[in-house]
């Protein structure tokens, strides 16, 4: 069987005609398998949804109880028959509940990795390599320029800056699902135990992480009235990056904008977005990790979904591994 007969791109997303389901569809479909809770992968309005417990919970938090008609939970490694195709979920190490989905049919195995990373992250289960014939990988940071440093060093920069500028409120931009909780956890792991203030948009997801056993220390809402900027002198405030350009940010004292993202690797990008303290902390693979993963999984073919496909495809060609870009649309970089 040709791999394209088992799974191929359609305008709604990757479609498996044999099993009659889509993976991470960008439009409402009858049957959806979801890798993780970021809004470009997990959308509301599908009829049946199959995902990990945590991904289902996150979708419920974000979209409400009626985000789909019926949900089904997938346990790690459990083989589920969906329309005659054997499907199983394996940790992807991206955010809480994130999974790679393996599809097996007539001796052919395809792994859709979703978004994934290989670096250590105490807030989610680590990536497990699954051998396969076709490995479908993202390429968000698929350029040789991306070498993400150890997150501990990056948090060290934040702590140094708190000492250098003890009066300024340090505003750490981090996306609401995954990055924010990971950054808070990293700050705690480096010995900082003052209260950390969060923007309202993070509250529910932080509570959920706590309920899943990920301790975040003392978290306070950063929503006290405009009148008390003194309270936030030298405080760490975590919020979605967009909020820092908004009027919301004015209640703080001489805000110093930091941004936790893999994109911060490139100085010009940091500069254009008005970031003073870039923290290169990513929930995606950097270039060496992408290559390491392909070597380890050893697929006979690589398909590249989204990001900088051309460089990764070029590298595979140089290595003699057949590779092609899928040109899927609708995936952005919410997770980084």
């Amino acid at each position, binding site marked *: 069987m040709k791999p394209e007969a088992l799974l191929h791109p359609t305008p709604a997303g990757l479609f498996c005609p044999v099993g009659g389901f889509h993976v991470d569809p960008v439009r409402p479909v009858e049957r959806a398998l979801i890798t993780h809770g970021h809004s470009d992968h997990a959308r509301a309005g599908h009829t049946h949804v199959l995902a990990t417990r945590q991904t289902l919970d996150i979708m419920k938090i974000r979209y409400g109880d009626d985000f789909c008609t019926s949900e089904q939970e997938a346990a790690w490694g459990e083989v589920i028959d969906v329309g005659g195709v054997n499907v199983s979920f394996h940790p992807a190490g991206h955010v809480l509940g994130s999974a790679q989905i393996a599809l097996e049919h007539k001796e052919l195995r395809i792994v859709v990795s979703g978004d994934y990373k290989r670096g250590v992250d105490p807030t989610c289960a680590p990536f497990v390599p699954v051998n396969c014939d076709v490995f479908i990988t993202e390429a968000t940071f698929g*350029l*040789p*320029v*991306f*070498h993400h*440093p150890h997150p501990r060093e990056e948090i060290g920069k934040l702590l140094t800056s708190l000492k*250098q*500028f003890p009066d300024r409120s340090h505003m750490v931009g981090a996306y609401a699902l995954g990055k924010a909780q990971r950054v808070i956890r990293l700050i705690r792991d480096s010995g900082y135990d003052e209260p950390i203030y969060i923007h309202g948009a993070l509250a529910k997801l932080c509570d959920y992480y706590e309920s899943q056993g990920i301790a975040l220390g003392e978290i306070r809402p950063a929503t006290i009235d405009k009148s008390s900027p003194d309270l936030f002198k030298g405080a760490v405030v975590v919020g979605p990056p967009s909020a*820092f*350009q*908004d*009027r*919301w*940010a*004015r209640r703080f004292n*001489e*805000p*110093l*904008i930091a941004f936790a993202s893999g994109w911060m*690797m*490139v*100085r*010009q990008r*940091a*500069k*254009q*977005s*008005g*970031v*003073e*303290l*870039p923290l290169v902390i990513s929930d995606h693979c950097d270039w*060496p990790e992408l*290559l390491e993963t392909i070597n380890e999984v050893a697929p006979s073919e690589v398909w590249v979904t989204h990001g*900088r496909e*051309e*460089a990764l495809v*070029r*590298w595979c060609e*140089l290595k003699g591994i057949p590779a092609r870009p899928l040109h899927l649309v609708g995936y952005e970089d919410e997770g980084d």
Partner: protein
Amino acid sequence: MKPFATLLDRLVLTPSRNGKITLLVDYFRTTPDPDRGYGLAALASALDLKSVKPAMLRELVLERMDAVLFQYSYDYVGDLAETIALVWDGLEKDDTTDAEQPLLSEVVARMNSLGRTEVRSAVRELLDHLDPSGRFAFLKLVTGSLRIGVSARLAKQALSEMSGKDVTEIETLWHGLEPPYVSLFAWLEGQADKPVLATPAIFHSVMLANPVESGDLEKLDPADYAAEWKWDGIRVQMSAHGGTKKLYSRSGDDITGAFPDIVEQINFDGVIDGELLVGGTMRSNNPTRTFSDLQQRLNRKTVNAKMLEDYPAFVRAYDILFDGEADVRAKGFLERRERLSEVIGHAPHDRFDLSDLVPFTTWDELEALRRDPPDPVIEGVMIKRRDSVYQAGRLKGPWFKWKRDPYNVDAVMLYAQRGHGKRSSYYSDFTFGVWTDGPDGDHLVPVGKAYFGFTDAELEVLDKFVRDNTVERFGPVRAVRADKDFGFVLEVAFEGINRSTRHKSGVAMRFPRIARLRMDKLPRDADRLETLTAMIDAKTADAKM
């Protein structure tokens, strides 16, 4: 290298001056000698380092990497040094520890000891031993382009901040010392006496004037003061001693190399304060030319023969600090002026002249002269106490500057952009335009951009207007509604105006700022482009008289 690289990373992204000073002070305090001295030299553009051509760097990186992958990377990053710094590790995860990295002083020593054929392998080896941020700093240093928004002046301010010593004292020492400035740091930290300078022709900090503010003059007796024209050039200092001749900018930057036409003609010993201008001296009977002509000669390391011929420079002398060996700074202004007149009288007539005194008896009389000066390149008057001694710095009382009133126009806000740092949540950079004829009738054409002049309370008003009236967004920039009957009128003040081929409107303003918010006016009442071009024409007509 690590501390310097970390400092550069922060400086590049820190917009505020105070923030930069904090980072610099921290670096000078925590980095040992001689590294901090080399860091200081690099920031102040005083570091002598063997340079490396970009072409060689490109060859080095292609030795270890596929050309196509390199090109993808370079296209994405857009800066050669940064691309190479980031891709150098290839497949390796970076695991260079800080202790293994060479020190900045070791890098400088190594590079400067290399013979021509050794450069390639030394650069390769250094890149291997630095982490990405260290590689970036190293590559910026050897390609000679730091571009991090730190001037020599700011670095000296930081030294002053760290030590409590006056910045003018540091500036006076500066040109007599060499990297890595060990004796300077020892003095700043109170561990040694002030260094004694061996080099002649050093820079001496200049005396500055305060602007005249309302009520200042009525308290003063005009008989105690002399007046001079304030020329629109740049303030310089000529320092000559036993054959060594130097030209310094107001902040002590050595600009000797760019002005051989002046420096070679210096025929006196001593230190003279004056205005650098282009055109002809009074004594040559050729007119003094405008600041935009002078700009052709500024910010260059060297100068070619055509430049020298098309834009001849000269110095209009204001004051004398040293007459030969004699320090005359403690003498009165008029007495110094007599000595100055003597020295300039014997200097080449086409390169040096003496700034005229402007006779007056009452402040009203001077006010009339200031408003209508005899030459378009005059931007106001200087008022100096007749008995004032020459004291470095900006003291209130002995010297005043009284500038010509700024130009004003009413313009309409067109675009707004978010500010930086403290202002990152405000739309605080405004592009404004005036009316002009077009094929479809009147339309607004952008004529300038301003980001200061308003109060914090006014900024709240401006920001609210932008947020409530955005019609289009382009990244951080918003276009706001601006038509005849709805929009925001800004009164813009500026120091000068010139023709420009770079701007669509054909005009360019100097130092535009927002003088007032004209909420009482509708955009239809704003000025027209013809008003601005008429200001240029009036100036040009003046110049021809």
